């Protein structure tokens, strides 16, 4: 499977038809717009090229209309605009102004009542701190010779008060973690000095509003009544507004939809460029959409569409769309998670699909649980996430196949034994605790095979891109493949098969020479590419022989280490076979220890727990193996996603 072929498209039209062109591009649903010019340089300006990055005139009315809709409790949603006759930004402004004028009185009444409620509620909070005051506010504030201030004083400052000689006294009423609430009294003549003292101690005055009169309890009662009255006023105003909203909602929704569309289209103008009276719009479409896209512009007055190969314009990179079969398509999600391949690069989805399914089956092999995962996958795919469901159903089948090989059904490891006996197959089922070595060694073998395949893919990509360092001399190139393959073969033959192949010629030809190639990959690749011996790829960089040796010694060390660690990493594939069998053994032990009636419950809960926990761990561990052990050998993942322009209706404005 490969990558979708793209085409570079340029649409040229008269400037007055720009909005129509952009609308058609959005309508197509397959046009990824690119900036027509990356920047207007002085030479470009000399040729008369200009960007259309003026201020969006629809932006202000859109915000205004959204505010009006919000004040009427109308949630904008996409609706039919056929009845809407508004055209220019000015028309929309006038429409908003008319709505605002019509609801002005009710909105003002509501605002005023809500403000009063807010003020009264604020006063209630302040008065709560003055509950200790048993005197009428009017009497206190009407003193002629005594100045009074109500407020809060930081607790830190309270202790300092007694060290002042000025004539004042502070009456505390209440205190919280940081402040002491109260009032201070002083002679009117020394008011300024005392105010300054308190201000320097960060006393925060609370202005008791004029509407608070009488004693504290009377004030509370009065405030509560006022809050009730104003709440009723708010309700009346809201009822009137609701009536207005119902009568005008259709018009508002249509205007909003049209205005949003015009605003979004205008935003797209910023990527277009103009020369004299013509505009240029550039972008990519999938090659298969060529005909449909061309047809869209047939009824326009001046637009002409030009199709070119995607690599014609070096200033923009073609986007990548992965082309996969139905069987492997869900696994594209994992590839996208890592990063898309370059346009024209290698699509690893099929490889991921095969390896992921295989490893999941091995690590989570259980006929019963696999079947449940398969069913769950069908449900998830239909109701929640198609790709996720697709992966689950495929790995579920794999789990069932390996579960059959292991003879495991919901943790019952002997259930399939009679079947195999009847069929006369004596090497099956594979028992985790009996064939432990076989399982672990097979896991390492799978690891070696996958690493070798990854290297082969890397070599193919390297040759395709004429990158000889990568294809021939690199640690994942031919040299790396021979080195790794020979060491692996040598170890397997010597230690397991008792075949002595590690002879001097074998070591020199298949291990030492490839190692030297990897060590000297930069100068060797430069010799092939530039026909000269260089220690660094970059001509300007001055690399000394000593520096070259030190740098490559450590890199070589890292490569060898990564060969070993990457191979050993696949031991986890075998490890999880044992872990799964072990966990199910625990469930079976718990079940057999439980009362007869509780046994099914323990079995169900145990299976559910193992499925959720181990299923998730296995899924994550395989992603890790794919991304670190496999992808790191051949895959870059720096492609550009395909994001066609479209008019999306959102309420964010």
């Amino acid at each position: 499977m490969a990558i979708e072929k793209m085409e570079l498209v340029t649409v040229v039209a008269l400037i007055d038809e720009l909005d129509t062109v952009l609308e058609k591009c959005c309508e197509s649903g397959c046009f990824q717009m690119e900036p027509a010019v990356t920047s207007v340089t002085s030479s470009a300006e000399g040729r008369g090229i200009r960007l259309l990055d003026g201020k969006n005139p629809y932006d202000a009315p859109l915000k205004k209309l959204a505010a009006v809709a919000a004040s009427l409790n109308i949630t904008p949603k996409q609706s039919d605009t056929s009845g809407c006759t508004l055209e220019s930004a000015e028309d929309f402004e006038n429409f908003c102004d008319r709505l605002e004028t019509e609801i002005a009185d009710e909105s003002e009444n509501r605002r005023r009542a809500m403000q009063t409620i807010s003020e009264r509620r604020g006063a209630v909070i302040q008065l709560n701190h003055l509950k200790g005051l048993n005197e009428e506010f009017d009497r206190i504030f009407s003193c002629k010779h005594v100045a009074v201030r109500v407020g809060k004083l930081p607790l830190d400052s309270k202790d300092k008060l007694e060290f002042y000689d000025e004539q004042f006294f502070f009456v505390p009423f209440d205190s919280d973690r940081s402040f002491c609430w109260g009032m201070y009294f002083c002679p009117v003549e020394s008011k300024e000095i005392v105010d300054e003292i308190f201000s320097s101690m960060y006393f925060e005055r609370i202005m008791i509003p004029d509407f608070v009169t009488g004693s504290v309890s009377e004030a509370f009662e009065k405030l509560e009544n006022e809050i009730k009255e104003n709440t009723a006023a708010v309700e009346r105003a809201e009822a009137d507004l609701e009536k207005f909203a119902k009568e005008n909602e259709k018009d508002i929704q249509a205007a909003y939809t049209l205005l949003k569309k015009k605003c979004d289209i205008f935003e797209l103008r910023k990527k277009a460029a103009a020369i004299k009276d013509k505009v240029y719009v550039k972008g990519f479409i999938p090659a298969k959409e060529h005909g449909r896209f061309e047809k869209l512009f047939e009824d326009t007055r001046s637009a002409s569409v030009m199709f070119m190969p995607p690599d014609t314009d070096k200033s923009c990179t073609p986007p990548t769309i992965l082309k996969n079969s139905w069987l492997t398509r869900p696994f594209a999600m994992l590839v996208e998670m890592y990063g898309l391949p370059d346009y024209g690069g290698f699509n690893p989805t099929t490889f991921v699909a095969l390896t992921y399914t295989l490893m999941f089956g091995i690590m989570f092999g259980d006929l019963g649980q696999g079947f449940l995962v398969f069913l769950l996958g069908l449900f998830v795919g239909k109701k929640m996430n198609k790709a996720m469901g697709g992966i689950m159903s495929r790995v579920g089948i794999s789990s069932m196949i390996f579960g059959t090989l292991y003879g495991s059904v919901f943790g019952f490891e002997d259930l399939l034994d009679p079947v195999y006996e009847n069929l006369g197959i004596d090497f099956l089922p594979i028992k985790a605790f009996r064939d432990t070595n076989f399982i672990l060694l097979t896991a390492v073998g799978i690891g070696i095979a996958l690493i070798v395949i990854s290297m082969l893919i890397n070599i193919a990509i390297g040759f395709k891109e004429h990158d000889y360092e990568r294809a021939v001399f690199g640690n994942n190139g031919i040299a790396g493949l021979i080195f790794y393959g020979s060491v692996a073969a040598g170890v397997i033959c010597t230690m397991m098969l008792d075949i002595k192949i590690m002879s001097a010629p074998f070591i020199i030809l298949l291990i030492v020479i490839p190692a030297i190639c990897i060590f000297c990959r930069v100068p060797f690749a430069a010799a092939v590419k530039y026909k000269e011996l260089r220690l660094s790829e970059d001509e300007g960089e001055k690399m000394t022989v000593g520096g070259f040796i030190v740098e490559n010694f450590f890199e070589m060390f890292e490569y060898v280490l990564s060969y070993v660690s990457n191979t050993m990493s696949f031991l986890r594939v075998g490890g999880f076979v044992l872990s799964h069998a072990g966990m199910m053994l625990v469930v079976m032990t718990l079940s057999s220890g439980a009362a007869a009636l509780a046994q099914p419950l323990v079995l169900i809960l145990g299976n559910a727990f193992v499925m959720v926990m181990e299923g998730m761990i296995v899924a994550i561990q395989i992603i890790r193996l794919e991304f670190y052990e496999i992808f790191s050998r051949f895959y870059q993942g720096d492609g550009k996603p395909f994001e066609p322009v479209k008019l999306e209706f959102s309420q964010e404005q």
Partner: protein
Amino acid sequence: MGESLAVNATAAKIRTLFGKMLTADNYREMLSKHSVAEVAEYLSETPLFSAAFKDVDPNTVHRGFLEALLNKSNFDLYLRLCRFQGLDKETFYSFLIQKRECEQLLNLVNELNSGLDRFVETLPGYVIRHSDLDLLKLSKAESYDDLLAMMKGSPYLKPLKSVRRTEDGGVDYTDCELKIRTFYYNRLIGQVRKKFSGKTKDELEKLIYSEIDVINIINAYRLKAYFGYTPAQIKATQLPFTRIGRRAMDRYYEADTPEDMIQRLKETVYGQKLSSDIGYIETEMNLSIYRLMRHTVACSASVPAVLYAFTRLCSIEVENIIHIIEGVRYGVEPSMLEKLLVV
């Protein structure tokens, strides 16, 4: 060894708090605020200051109170860290209380000299509670002699007595500052040498001496650049401690011009990262201390050193915030303010 291992949890706790400190991005966000209330609101949502600002109404809070709250918050944090594993029982760990005590004494002397009676107003409540001195009682002093009489029995009496008097019966404030600071650092270094040994002692000495060097470098530069002091006059006003050696510091003091001073500073450990275009010497020097303290908090295995460095970082953080608050209050350009930030 056992003791140091026992208090390692304090170092771990400090490192967690260190990760919650304000970053350059946070400062940039604060610089974009338009009022002190907005800055206060922003701070009330940060992990380290949210508790301190819990009861504060950002819309009515006084700028001075905001600054006092920040300092109090840091002091409370320091106390919490000291109490976490009972470190507050050791005299060394009262270094911040002692520092604040010295600052208040100097404030008091300044007020006595100027004849203003505002000492109590600016006296932080948390210092009153934790200081061994009865600072509220001291606020009653009407003259320097009164103060000396009240200080009887206090370790500060000796340095205060040795301060040069002026002809009008007051005191030479610069001399007083030098004596009090010398006394503070002498006592601190004495405590370090008595209590600690090995790597911990070396690290703490390095931190304290570096801090002193930076104070001396900034002072000397100011005296040369703004008051035209001679090398002899400069040397007489410097704290008598150094990390980089007397000779290196003397060479710096003896420079003919402020530009020459900068050139000579570049030869020292503090000037290695100086840019060619120095904005403010204070910011540049505090940056060098900031780097050292950050490194200590992140890498040191010594709890006393980590705590000392963290406390200094917290002070720098508060100084940065105060710069921003003042800048926002008086409408200073954010780019100008950014140059003052130590980050």
